């Protein structure tokens, strides 16, 4: 396949074209990815998430710079960046502005930046982000930084895509009750307080630290559903809390050090393998859900769905009854109906 060969030969235009084909759900894109898949699994996938405006893009920019020009004797790494911004639910359009903060990286052939619109997906990523990351991995980028949309409390999907997740906070972001709520903070492998030169950084650090102290006497706090085995005692990774001023490059060396340390920890404790397994299973599950849903929708008689919605509106059916009515019409026998709707 010429496209695959060109991508493997490092042709950047071919790579850019492939990413578009994948984003557009084009069959050539999937075929190329099928051929490239055996070459994936090399890159360190790093997620960067946090609320809008905390400085995710600036931090990504600085981390990439530090990885390209290491001061500490580490070899320079090639870096790909996938930056996701939200698609408007009204127009379907998007304004992708993350590159504005990444201008320092331009002109470096060891860096490839791609902006993605979320295209209707919730959870902070786009429907094809995982596939785009695979393509970049196969193309040979050693580190892939994945920046989510500005995330609130529930956009935790990045933790299932990345090996290492950085949660970025900034001073003034709420009290210690916010910090012990479920969600974003639970997925952090690194906690970064950006804009740490601003007032309130101490308070933020104290809140995060008290959250960690509550969570860590009992070991790691990742939900069991992610199939990540509990590490043996003494091998627990406690997320470091790091302070940065990304616009000035302060604290970045420590962040990069922690990223390398986390990768080393994952490999030394065989958790890298466990995460890979959880990650790939999750990617498969997502695709399966989408494909089953599409197949089932295609199998419905014309207008039937709309009719059920109307009956729902008239209060003739409850949502639960509507579900039964829809699934009974599908080609699956009702007794063992697969649960299509999570």
């Amino acid at each position, binding site marked *: 396949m010429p496209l695959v060969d060109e991508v493997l030969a490092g042709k950047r*235009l071919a790579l*850019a074209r492939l990413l578009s084909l994948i984003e*557009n759900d084009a069959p050539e894109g999937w075929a190329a990815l099928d051929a490239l898949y055996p070459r994936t699994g090399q890159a360190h996938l790093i997620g960067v998430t946090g609320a809008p405006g905390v400085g995710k893009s600036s931090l990504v920019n600085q981390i990439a710079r530090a990885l390209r020009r290491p001061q500490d004797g580490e070899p320079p790494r090639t870096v790909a960046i996938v930056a996701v911004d939200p698609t408007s639910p009204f127009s379907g359009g998007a304004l992708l502005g993350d590159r504005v903060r990444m201008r320092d990286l331009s002109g470096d052939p060891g860096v490839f930046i791609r902006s993605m619109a979320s295209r209707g997906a919730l959870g902070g990523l786009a429907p094809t982000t995982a596939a785009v990351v695979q393509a970049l991995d196969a193309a040979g980028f050693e580190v892939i930084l994945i920046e989510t949309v500005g995330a609130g409390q529930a956009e935790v999907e990045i933790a299932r895509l990345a090996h290492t997740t950085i949660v970025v906070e900034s001073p003034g972001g709420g009290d210690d009750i916010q910090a012990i709520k479920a969600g974003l903070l639970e997925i952090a492998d690194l906690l970064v307080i950006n804009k740490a030169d601003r007032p309130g950084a101490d308070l933020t650090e104290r809140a995060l630290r008290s959250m960690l102290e509550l969570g860590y006497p009992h070991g790691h706090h990742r939900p069991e559903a992610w199939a990540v085995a509990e590490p043996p005692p003494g091998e627990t990774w406690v997320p470091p809390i790091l302070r940065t001023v990304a616009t000035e490059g302060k604290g970045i060396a420590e962040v990069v050090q922690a990223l390398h340390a986390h990768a080393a920890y994952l490999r030394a404790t065989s958790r890298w393998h466990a995460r890979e397994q959880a990650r790939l299973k999750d990617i498969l599950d997502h695709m399966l859900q989408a494909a089953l849903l599409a197949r089932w929708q295609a199998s419905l008689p014309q207008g039937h769905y709309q009719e059920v919605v109307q009956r729902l509106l008239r209060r003739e059916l409850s949502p639960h009854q509507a579900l039964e009515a829809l699934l009974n019409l599908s080609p699956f026998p009702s007794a063992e109906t697969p649960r299509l709707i999570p």
Partner: protein
Amino acid sequence: MDQRKIRVLIAKPGLDGHDRGAKIVARALRDAGMEVIYTGLRQTPEMIAEAALQEDVDVVGLSILSGAHMTLVPRVLELLRANGQEHVLVFVGGIIPEEDVPALLAMGVKAVYGPGTPTQTIVEDIRRAVLEAQGSVA
């Protein structure tokens, strides 16, 4: 399944610091359902061509108010071609003297927009041009 969206890079080459026009156009294109990559102020032609390549855009919109368009635009076009992106449609907006417009169009610019152009005109022109370009490829 056809999931194609028109991807547009909006860039400000050169040294002037006025990006209001570029932002208005970016916003209008977003509202028209396009995916707009906005790169910010003071971009060199090299930075613009590199971003256009990595983002695999259909369209590059250049906003220039500095008067340097006769230097900057040909350089961007040249770099796009050198990168194998001769199919990318280039539009120019800003303060462009009437007498320079024919030369820009002759270089390969699709259209030049002055102050006061309704955003709807730009949206429609881009849609039409992208459709035509896709038709000629298929």
